[in-house]
């Protein structure tokens, strides 16, 4: 049992997976399009807010040791409320997984499999989900922990090896489209910190639940640095990313890496790493969805539900008729879902549950 619990590095890697997966698709470009040359200021500002939100979540959730958001919602509103909240979070996980694999598969199709129907690529990811979810959750998390340093090193490599193509003056004018755009409409970039959702589900899995604060701060800090590297690479390299939509912007940046004629075409290595990362992300999100389903149905084993969630992810991912709709789902719908579900709904449940707990304690004390 002790082995099935998550250690601090594993938990940090788990939160970072969400940051990384969305950065591979179009998140850095969406951030750039919102705030243009003031992106780095905006990202600092948004990261501070995300950190405050993370600490707030920690403060609220620590009063419910070993409970996740589903257990807390049951405490708050009973079984019906738990089921509703469970469905909402399950929808969030399944929807974001579908959006990710659809957009990433579009890129893979264009680059490597021009003649293959996208359904086959999506099916490959869905089958991967089914297979990985047959194992324990801790297995997926351990694999994710092995992969995470490779991903972080690869993005650092992408940044440093492109330095020769950088023009640091692209960060000017420092306020981009203005103060309002940087600090008010730029708040939309909080959507990049959707990885915070994992914090709601972490407590029951943690080996050392008292270290949740450390996990929260470390994961948001590393995630911010990671986003800085991604966005910085694109901002310093390209003049046009705020005007022209690229399929996989980080892939475009990786195509510029060349060390003379000695080392060229490293983008395939990046794609290989990103395929593994997307598979990890999908396994984790489908596993979380199956765990929610298990709780909702009061079952002992979550594994049978993994097939259902994988099929749902696959089904939703084939729905968009074209790349434009799939892109819109990522850049618009997902962003609002993060705000609505992760920041508003999650925090509201925790706040109300804390108020209820305090009242109950007061009544029992009296």
């Amino acid at each position, binding site marked *: 049992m002790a082995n099935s619990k998550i250690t601090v590095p594993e938990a940090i890697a788990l939160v970072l997976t969400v940051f990384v997966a969305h950065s591979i698709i179009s998140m850095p470009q969406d951030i750039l399009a919102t705030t243009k040359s003031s992106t780095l200021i905006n990202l600092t500002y948004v990261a501070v807010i995300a950190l405050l939100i993370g600490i707030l979540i920690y403060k609220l959730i620590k009063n419910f040791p070993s409970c996740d958001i589903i257990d807390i919602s049951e405490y708050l509103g009973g079984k019906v409320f738990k089921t509703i909240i469970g469905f909402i979070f399950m929808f969030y996980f399944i929807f974001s997984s579908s959006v990710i694999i659809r957009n990433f598969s579009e890129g893979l199709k264009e680059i490597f499999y021009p003649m293959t129907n996208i359904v086959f690529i999506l099916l490959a990811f869905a*089958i991967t989900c089914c297979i990985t979810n047959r194992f324990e959750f801790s297995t997926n998390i351990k694999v994710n922990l092995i992969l995470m340093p490779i991903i972080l090193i690869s993005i650092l490599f992408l940044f440093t090896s492109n330095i020769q193509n950088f023009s640091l*003056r692209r960060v000017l004018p420092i306020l981009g489209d203005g103060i309002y755009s940087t600090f008010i409409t730029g708040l939309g970039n909080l959507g990049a910190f959707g990885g915070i959702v994992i914090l709601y589900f972490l407590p029951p899995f943690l080996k050392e639940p008292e270290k949740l604060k450390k996990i929260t701060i470390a994961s948001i800090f590393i995630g911010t640095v990671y986003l800085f590297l991604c966005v910085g690479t694109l901002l310093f390299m390209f003049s046009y990313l705020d005007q022209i939509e690229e399929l996989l912007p980080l892939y475009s940046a990786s195509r510029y890496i060349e060390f003379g004629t000695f080392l*060229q075409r490293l983008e395939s290595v990046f794609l290989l790493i990103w395929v593994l990362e997307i598979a990890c992300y999908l396994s984790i999100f489908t596993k979380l969805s199956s765990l929610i389903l298990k709780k909702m149905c009061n079952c002992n084993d979550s594994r049978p539900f993994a097939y259902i969630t994988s099929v749902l992810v696959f089904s939703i991912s084939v729905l968009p008729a074209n790349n434009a709709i799939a892109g819109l789902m990522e850049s618009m719908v997902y962003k609002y879902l993060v705000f609505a579900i992760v920041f508003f709904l999650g925090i509201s449940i925790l706040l109300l549950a804390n108020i209820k707990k305090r009242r109950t304690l007061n009544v029992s004390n009296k």
Partner: protein
Amino acid sequence: MSQISNILKKIFILIIIIVFMIGFSYSYKALSIDNVAFLIALGIDSSDNNNYQFTFQFTKPISSGESGSSEAPPSIDYIVNASSIGSGINLLNAHIGKEINLSHCKLVVISEELARKGIYKEIYTLTNDIELRPSSNIVISKCSANYYITNSKPVFENLLPNYYETFPNSSEFTGYNVKTNIGDFFDSLVCTSREPYAILGGINSESANASTSINSQKDVNEKANSSPVEGNVNSDNSGMAVFKNDVLVGELNSLETLCFLTVQNKVDHFLISVPNPDEKNAYVDIYMTPDIAPKIDVKIVNGTPYIKVKLKFEGNIYSVAKNTNYLDNSILNKLSENCNSYLESNISNCLYKTSKNFKSDINGFGFYARDDFLTLNDYKNYNWNYKYKDAVFDITVESNVKSSFLLNQT
């Protein structure tokens, strides 16, 4: 029961394997080396009725027996008249029975005639191509693109793609040509703070050689198609092509290109000829090395861009005659002053040429002008690309000619 379940599992796995084999085999087949022809150079010329004439160059596979041959590397060239790049490739696909793949295309040549009409569509289309790498060099040819490609034969290389990839590298140690590629060109085309430029190419003809006067001060004024060099290398890539948006507006010769590259800090070392302080009408060749990165400062004064460029170089004397004393500090100081005035006047002329004649900020001074604006809207309203024609330049060069190489006193 478990046996049946095992059998079902195996059947399921088998079905999945078969499904994936079928699904992915089409892509494997399409990208298989047997079905693909790798393009190494693409030439684009304008043709009648708004059509294009494309030149597609492929390498010819060399058999083991031919590998020691001293002849020029073999190539296969095709000319296709079509209405767009896509349809040109498609027509040739049908003709050669293979699918053209641009992932090894090292060179895109566009004729001067077409470039003067505007090449927006071509550049966007090529950038949109997933196979074409952003590092492919872009050349604007003084002659037709077809003539350039078919007559570009390397001498020191056995492989044409290698030659196409590496020939612009000489810009780092001569400064007479530029190194630019499709990726940079596209970025400059879209950017509001910089204008695009390209390598200027041509094929040396006998008449061009004959008309070139040999003079230590004038041989740096050469540009493509008018090189004083004679020999086996036919293609000549000196100078650079300057664009305003997508339209070719002018050319810079070798010296002007050198000046451009010094401001860009893209030249490692270069040779200049300055008047000899000891001898009238004589010149001294000096190897200059940039000491520190250029300091560029752009201020908007009364609505006009005021551009200050400060450059620092170290110099080593290359040409040595009899009875010279390069250990004498006064001679070195005079040479330094000569270098300063020579570089200042040439760099200034080059920059004024880009602003007054071409109205094109190929140097990207617009990025430095952004310092003066708080928001992008302010910057856009200022309309840098329009105002650049009024720019005033203040060039300061500090040279320090230190010594000769081996012989300091003769």
